[in-house]
């Protein structure tokens, strides 16, 4: 009785709710961007009109300083320019930047790689259905980190976490962290489980080591029939696809697998995979194999030939998917940088930073004015709910009875209530 990993994966929320084709992703992002753009423009127009109205009122009553906060740094409402919203590409760059900052934040808070990776995926999922113009990534990322900690059994107490992420410049209150929590879990559609490729990469590499050591016992579809044959074959793999076969010593092979292949692949997964769309587009096993493919193609191709018959039509499909996934990874800035000289790297970083700076500035002038203060928004929502008479009659009745019983009991014990001086009958 063995569960098929594919079947298991197909029942996961990651597959059912969070796997897309590239076209679906693009369409959803366009939709989210459009909705947010319309809303920002509408809300800005409304608030500007309110401001004018309020200003008129104030000028008649002689009151001044209606808006103290926006005096020196104009926001979307206080600016007099037409609202210029972020494009989808700009939104993505912005979210990506905050994913990177979130990684640093997570490391600062001493969360495990697992929590950090989950948090980044929470953010990416959140911003599939929300625009950073509506909810600023700064607010959302802190809460997502707190939530990821709870979800991955690495809960840090709210107070501790708030202190941890506060700096002298920016004080973060527990209320600020909790305010968008429901917003986030709702956008995540209550799916907390994120399947990462890290453990599978470790497992795969150990599997390759067992082939190297001649102790492999798994399925074998290759031309090398015995474990010893497999071991010989893996020792003779060329370093580059199409390269010359050269016999390696066991030590060289172990170094190749554990150090030269595993380490860079693990780095790719930790950083680049998190910053691209690969979690939405590919399965965890495709992602780790693609990351390893970038590090050592002959090794991965050999491994695949052991795992499935190369005559099978699925084999070709798998290779194509891996190459596509690897291309996404290798095209990303964080991966390209690795193979460039230092000055080239510095130039890329500077370019990126300038773009981010521009976006942050631009976002200030197109941030949805209705969603600036999440704490107030959250309070208002809860209050509305109470207004909406959620205290059902049953509950109210029971509570009244509790109160009356308590009064009776305490009257018998304490004696009746003393008349209060100066109390007037209402």
């Amino acid at each position, binding site marked *: 009785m063995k569960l098929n990993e594919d079947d298991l994966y197909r029942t996961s929320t990651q597959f059912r709710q969070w796997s897309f084709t590239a076209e679906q992703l693009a369409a959803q992002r366009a939709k989210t961007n459009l909705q947010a753009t319309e809303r920002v423009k509408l*809300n800005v127009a409304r608030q500007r*009109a309110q401001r004018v109205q309020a200003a008129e009122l104030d000028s008649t009553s002689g009151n001044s300083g209606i808006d103290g906060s926006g005096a020196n740094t104009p926001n979307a409402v206080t600016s007099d320019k037409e609202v210029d919203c972020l494009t989808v590409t700009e939104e993505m760059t912005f979210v990506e930047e905050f994913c990177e900052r979130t990684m640093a934040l997570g490391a600062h808070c001493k969360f495990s790689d697992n929590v950090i990776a989950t948090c980044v995926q929470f953010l990416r999922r959140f911003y599939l259905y929300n625009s950073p113009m509506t909810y600023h990534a700064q607010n959302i990322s802190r809460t997502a980190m707190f*939530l990821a900690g*709870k979800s991955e059994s690495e809960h840090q107490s709210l107070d501790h976490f708030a202190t941890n992420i506060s700096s002298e410049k920016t004080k973060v209150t527990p209320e600020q962290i909790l305010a968008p929590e429901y917003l986030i879990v709702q956008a995540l559609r209550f799916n907390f489980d994120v399947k990462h490729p890290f453990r599978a990469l470790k497992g795969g590499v150990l599997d390759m080591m067992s082939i190297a050591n001649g102790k492999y016992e798994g399925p074998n579809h290759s031309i090398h029939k015995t474990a010893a044959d497999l071991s010989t074959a893996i020792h003779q793999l060329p370093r580059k696809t199409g390269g010359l076969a050269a016999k390696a010593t066991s030590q060289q092979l172990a170094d190749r697998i554990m150090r030269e292949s595993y380490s860079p692949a693990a780095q790719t997964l930790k950083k680049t995979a998190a910053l691209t769309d690969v979690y939405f587009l590919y399965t965890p096993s495709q992602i780790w194999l693609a990351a390893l493919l970038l590090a050592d193609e002959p090794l991965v191709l050999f491994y695949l030939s052991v795992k499935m018959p190369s005559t099978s039509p699925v084999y070709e499909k798998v290779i194509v998917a891996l190459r596509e996934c690897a291309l996404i990874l290798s095209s990303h800035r964080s991966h390209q940088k690795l193979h460039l000289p230092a000055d080239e790297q510095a130039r890329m970083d500077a370019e990126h930073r300038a773009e981010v700076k521009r976006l942050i500035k631009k976002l200030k002038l197109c941030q949805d004015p209705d969603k600036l203060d999440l704490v107030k928004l959250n309070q208002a929502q809860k209050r509305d709910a109470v207004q909406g008479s959620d205290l059902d009659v049953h509950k109210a009745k029971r509570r009244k009875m509790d*109160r009356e019983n308590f009064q009776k009991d305490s009257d018998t014990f304490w004696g009746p209530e003393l008349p209060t001086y100066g109390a007037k009958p209402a």
Partner: protein
Amino acid sequence: MGVSSPAALSPRPKPPGSHLAVPDRAKALSGLSRAAKPPASAPITRTPIDGGEADMAEQMNDALRSQFVSGARLGEGTYAIVYAGHYRHDPTKLVAIKKIKLNADFKDGIAMDAIREIKYLSELSHPNIIKLHAVFSTKDQNLSLVLEHLPLGDLEGLWKNKSITYSSADIKAWSNMLCQAIWFCHANHVLHRDIKGNNLLIAADNTVKLADFGLARSFADPGAKMTSNVITRFYRPPELLYGCLHYAGNADMWSVGCVIAELALRQFFLPSETDLQQLSVIIDVFGTPSEESWPGVGSLRYYQPPPNRSAVKLPQPLSWWRGRLPLLGDDGIDMVRGMLAMDPQKRLTAEQALQHRYWTSAPRPTKKENLPNEGGGMKKEGEDLKRKGGETPAGAGRVDKVARKLDFGGM
């Protein structure tokens, strides 16, 4: 009304429900402010904090919520309120709606139990695990879980109900469903950490379904620490009682063994009053562990070697088991003892348990449609679902057997 009395001058302690003054006041205040402003001006004076039209995520949530109709209240616990419900489009499709209560003691937002339960039930899809149809939040930011309708009580209720008689074949059928459920959890790298009779609910067709994933977690990375303060005491394995911080599926398997023994015994198998006593109850049956019988036991945090030779207890012989659990037969006893090996390394895994000869030897497990049941009705599920992990129904024991005193720092 009581709220308007000058509470500040009263020498009494606060009456129950007095904290309600806050929402009451908020209601009153908002009523006032609404009255002060003519409603006609609402569109233009709409404050920036009321949010405007719904987010896409909110719309999806509302659409989901409107699929279900919530009915009578079935029960209320400290952790949740359970309602009967059904699909709006088909009133014959019944569900149980578990509304997680806001926990006043937990200041850190959405409760861990709720997150765990939602997280794992969303991923686990198996006939012997309670199905989570949907999750939605209500305006007042409460989470509601729409769960499978399981009206026939639970395994603990079954063995306690003396008006029901059942056979070895029935025990085998129930036990097998339990083993399949836990095997599926472990195959998905999920530890349940609170397996016990009253978390094993029974569907209308007599299928046993594992419920309450409020303490569940994923298998930890090798070497990572987990809390040892989980699993309701009667079902807690010795390594956890000794404070072991590294464990895996085998911790759940001990609980499974206890549940099966309980079914056969129609009593709690290893009842105790305290954690310390739990250990001595276990040792009375399984003998004092030693480095020979359980390598590494001496290095566990709370391990105490026996003070002298005479304090060393020997494990009960097979004849004791035959006398105590006759309904299991020799094969059943062998399997249960395999699940209840003191050394977690020697304990049967869920997969090994499912391969045990007990399942294929006579008598064959009873077919589901022929299993005896309590016919408890919807009310019973309300009782079962409203508990949080580690709670046992009132009357099961006088003392607190609650597993849930989680030390989140040590997870």
